[in-house]
């Protein structure tokens, strides 16, 4: 196989990718009673995808990615309440504001070790959460921001009570982002991020402007997290302090661990598995579901994803 063919084969959308997306887009129609859950999982998957850009592709560890999700959620909610009810308009503003915040925060993650970055990202999320709590004249404080009424999507599709419109809206936006990112990760830009992740010293030595690249991807990831947050606020008509919560940042990290990082489908797979585990286990044993989740994670880490998915290899030596 020639170099050109090998490189081109990475770009092409696989048949199963297209098939999976068709299935996903058909879900609100196939399972109308689960439409709310579908949009919830989709939004979380988008959020996980945005984290994967910096974690899986660029090697930046973050425990505060919810900062941008929350920023997007409050921006979208406030925008709809006070300025304009159009969903797409509000969503672009939410994305823009979160990206701006990301650009500022990116300066804090350029230097230092992984531990420094974890602390900086965690700190930013905590600060924003407390700000949203204190500025109750604007954000509703601990009660959350209520009474957000959205206009119809694209001026035509009203949000319905069962969440079908919301599910398609979330799926549509997520598909759009997926298609763009699918191209981005196999571009020279995308590969330069992976080079920085693998070996920063050498990345610099082949002429990659490391800082500029990291600022760019951190800003984009923040914007996309804001997009997810905005979607959540718009589809639920509500924004509350938990959008900034540490739990949210930690959960999304778990999803990437489960689904696999450095792989765009990882966020989607992780979100689906995590949410399914959650609802199945907590229906079975409501009090102890985190015990079983914890056990699953320990097994996943010790055995490895590859082996866990291939039970027939368990007998063989590693």
């Amino acid at each position, binding site marked *: 196989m020639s170099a050109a063919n090998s490189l081109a084969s990475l770009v092409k959308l696989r048949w199963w990718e297209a098939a999976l997306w068709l299935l996903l887009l058909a879900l609100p129609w196939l399972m109308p009673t689960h439409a709310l859950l579908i949009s919830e999982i989709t939004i979380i998957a988008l959020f996980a995808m945005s984290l994967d850009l910096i974690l899986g592709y660029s090697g930046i560890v973050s425990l505060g990615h919810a900062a941008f999700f929350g920023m997007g959620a409050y921006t979208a909610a406030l925008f709809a309440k006070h300025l304009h009810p159009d969903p797409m308009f509000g969503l672009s503003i939410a994305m823009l504001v979160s990206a701006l915040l990301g650009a500022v925060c990116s300066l804090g993650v350029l230097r230092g070790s992984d531990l420094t970055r974890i602390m900086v990202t965690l700190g930013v999320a905590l600060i924003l959460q407390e700000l949203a709590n204190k500025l109750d004249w604007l954000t509703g404080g601990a009660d959350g921001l209520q009474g957000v009424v959205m206009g119809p999507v694209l001026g035509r599709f009203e949000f319905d009570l069962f969440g079908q419109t919301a599910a398609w809206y979330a799926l549509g936006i997520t598909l759009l982002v997926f298609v763009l990112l699918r*191209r981005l990760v*196999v571009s*020279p830009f995308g*590969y330069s991020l992976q080079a920085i992740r693998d070996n920063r010293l050498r990345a610099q*030595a*082949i002429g990659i402007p*490391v800082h500029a690249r990291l600022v760019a991807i951190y800003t984009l990831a923040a914007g996309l997290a804001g997009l997810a947050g905005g979607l959540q606020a718009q589809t639920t008509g509500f924004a509350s302090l938990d959008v900034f919560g540490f739990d949210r940042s930690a959960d999304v990290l778990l999803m990437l661990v489960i689904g696999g990082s450095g792989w765009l489908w990882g966020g989607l797979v992780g979100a689906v598995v995590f949410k399914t585990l959650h609802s199945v286990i907590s229906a079975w044993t409501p009090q102890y579901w985190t015990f079983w989740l914890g056990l699953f994670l320990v097994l996943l880490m010790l055995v490895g994803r590859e082996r866990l998915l291939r039970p027939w290899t368990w007998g063989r030596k590693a």
Partner: protein
Amino acid sequence: MSDLVLTCEHLVKRFGGIHATDQVSLQIPRGARHALIGPNGAGKTTLINLLTGVLTPTKGRIHLRGEDISKLPPHERVRRGLVRTFQINQLFEGLTPLQTLAMTLSQQRGQGARWWQALGHSPDLNLRCEQLLAQFHLTKVMNHCTHELPYGKRRLLEMAIALACEPRVLLLDEPAAGVPAGEREELLQTVAALPVDVSVVLIEHDMDLVFSFAHRITVLVQGAVLTEGPPAEIAADPRVREVYLGHGDQHG
């Protein structure tokens, strides 16, 4: 003078009271085959780091093709054609050799920030990729993940990456270090076959390689230039024998 590609004048680097580099001046003409030798701790690596911009000199200037690059960050120097390899392989373990080289070439051609184009979008870049893969005996393993490659191949990839940067000056930091005997010949051939218009500065302990490759040799001792000259002159110099060859031979 116009034929000089890389020069540095009175380069000084102090770490506290230690002169790691002490008034070093070098003149590297186009197409040079220049070796830099010296016992351990002579400041060879510090000098490389100063030239490539990893360290900033305490005093002195560095010129690349007439332009003062003393203040430029490392990646800007690479874009101007000053490229190095590393004594210890510095590879991108998660990428394949093909991806690594295509990405490196696109960076060098100023397309590195393009997120909307696929890598491998440009046919002449792909062609150059195939040339490099063939030149460094990597064609067969081009789609293997880098972390799976045997050591000799990794060493070749190390050099291929540098050449993908389209260098005018190539700093080779101990290219033969740690290469097993069976894979050595392949490596020596590729070093000998480097493009003639590229100036090569070789830092090496392997005296066979140094004396077969270099047209000029600079000897560094304790951060300063002891002497510089053609190989025959260096080999005959009693001071060089004293400080280096006399007890440095175990590397050869």
